[in-house]
């Protein structure tokens, strides 16, 4: 695997040299992923909290559906979004196909169920502890949800990071709706797939290592923020 180390060195060289092409790709990766995770959390956290908190008919069915949707195949999501946005699709006038926005849409669809399903579990566990007290205090539905989302925030960070992991690693959906178009929609994962299909396996691996390091950096930042928040809460 010595050629791998060469490739890794080369790839790092590009990063260190701030190679504009690679920087553009990394930047777009982060932009698409973080936007998608943000939206997925905006939808998935309240959704999961609602299912984890309230009793309504069909609640366990919804929980099972959310769990099942964690198994949404990326390619299928990609196709669905493609068919919606394509020139002959219903949303063609938006002209979003092969834009980063389309990739964000696909990732939101993919990541939201993960965030929602895991949030449901976390909130359900907390609700077992809080629900009688809340009922006694007459806390309204919205207040219950927000209070529990807030109090479970440290556990939910892991949920959001799971969503981030799925989004940042994802290639099947974004390549279909983004098209992996150079300088437009090319991100880390689609680049890796491309280099793989070109047979540049070592380069592909090296790019993968860089992607992982970026994911590691993001996770470290989040956990450091969390730690300092915990410290502040106890100070």
């Amino acid at each position, binding site marked *: 695997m010595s050629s791998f180390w060469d490739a890794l060195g080369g790839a790092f060289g590009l990063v260190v040299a701030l190679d504009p092409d690679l920087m553009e790709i990394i930047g777009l990766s982060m932009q698409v992923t973080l936007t998608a995770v943000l939206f997925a959390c905006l939808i998935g956290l309240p959704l999961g909290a609602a299912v984890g908190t309230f009793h309504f008919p069909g609640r366990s069915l919804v929980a099972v559906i959310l769990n099942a949707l964690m198994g949404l195949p990326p390619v299928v999501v990609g196709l669905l979004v493609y068919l919606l946005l394509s020139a002959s699709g219903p949303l063609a006038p938006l002209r979003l196909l092969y834009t980063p926005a389309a990739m964000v849409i696909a990732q939101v669809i993919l990541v939201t169920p993960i965030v929602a399903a895991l949030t449901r579990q976390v909130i359900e566990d907390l609700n077992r502890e809080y629900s009688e007290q809340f009922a006694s205090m007459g806390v309204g539905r919205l207040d219950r949800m927000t209070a529990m989302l807030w109090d479970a925030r440290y556990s939910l960070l892991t949920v959001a990071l799971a969503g981030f992991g799925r989004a940042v690693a994802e290639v099947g959906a974004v390549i*279909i709706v983004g098209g*992996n178009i150079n300088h437009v929609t090319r991100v880390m994962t689609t680049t890796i797939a*491309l280099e793989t299909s070109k047979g540049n396996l070592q380069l592909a691996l090296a790019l993968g290592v860089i992607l992982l390091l970026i994911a590691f950096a993001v996770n470290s930042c989040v956990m450091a923020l969390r730690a300092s928040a915990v410290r502040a809460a106890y100070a």
Partner: protein
Amino acid sequence: GQVTFAQDKFIIVQSTTSTQNSGLFDYLLPIFTDKTGIEVRVVAVGTGQAIKNAANGDGDVLFVHSKPSEEKFVADGLGVSRADVMYNDFVIVGPTSDPAGVAGSEDVVASLKKIAEAKAPFASRGDDSGTHKAELRLWKAAGIDPSEASGDWYSETGSGMGATLNAGTGMGAYVLTDRATWISFGNKGDFEVLVEGDPVLFNQYGVILVNPQVHEHVKAEMGQEFIDWLLSDEGQSAIADYKVDGQQLFFPNAG
């Protein structure tokens, strides 16, 4: 050769997506297997990846369409020898609205010039595949460097033929494709073949046995049997017999 167990009676062919997506293998391989009892397992990936995989020894036979790379593979001692099997041709497909007005042309270079002048959307595979390399040769002949317009009217999809065709029909862009993939492609939309018949659009497929002296586990006997059959009259006519919608996709030209 080597001892072959019953469940081991198979070979692995590293090939490209065009042969797989066109359905050729689904038609061809059962005929061969019925006759010889040898199962053929096809791994269909990008040309570059197929060659790389074969170079690593992860296949017994290489069946691709990029003559220079194939010749280099043999010259490097990784393959035993190369033989022509069949050809088809490249065509330019595009929307019926034809914004660059290239429909009916037989001059592919002139057509590319028109497309570039009109800045009409063009989707390229951009993946160093045989098709991509052929496309780049044609642009060069037209005196255009499309990479300058990359991300503008010229989109490098960095994907396989099918994915690039999906992108092309999705964004209404011209695409250079091999005819076989196009004919069997299911998502044509309002696209049709606009430019065809130029002799420079010739697309040759070759077959190579991976060198058992480099990779000793290569099933040379069975691999050679497959190659021999492909090149035989029987194999050649089987290739010619494969049709989609009444159209012949590949034209045998062994020997």
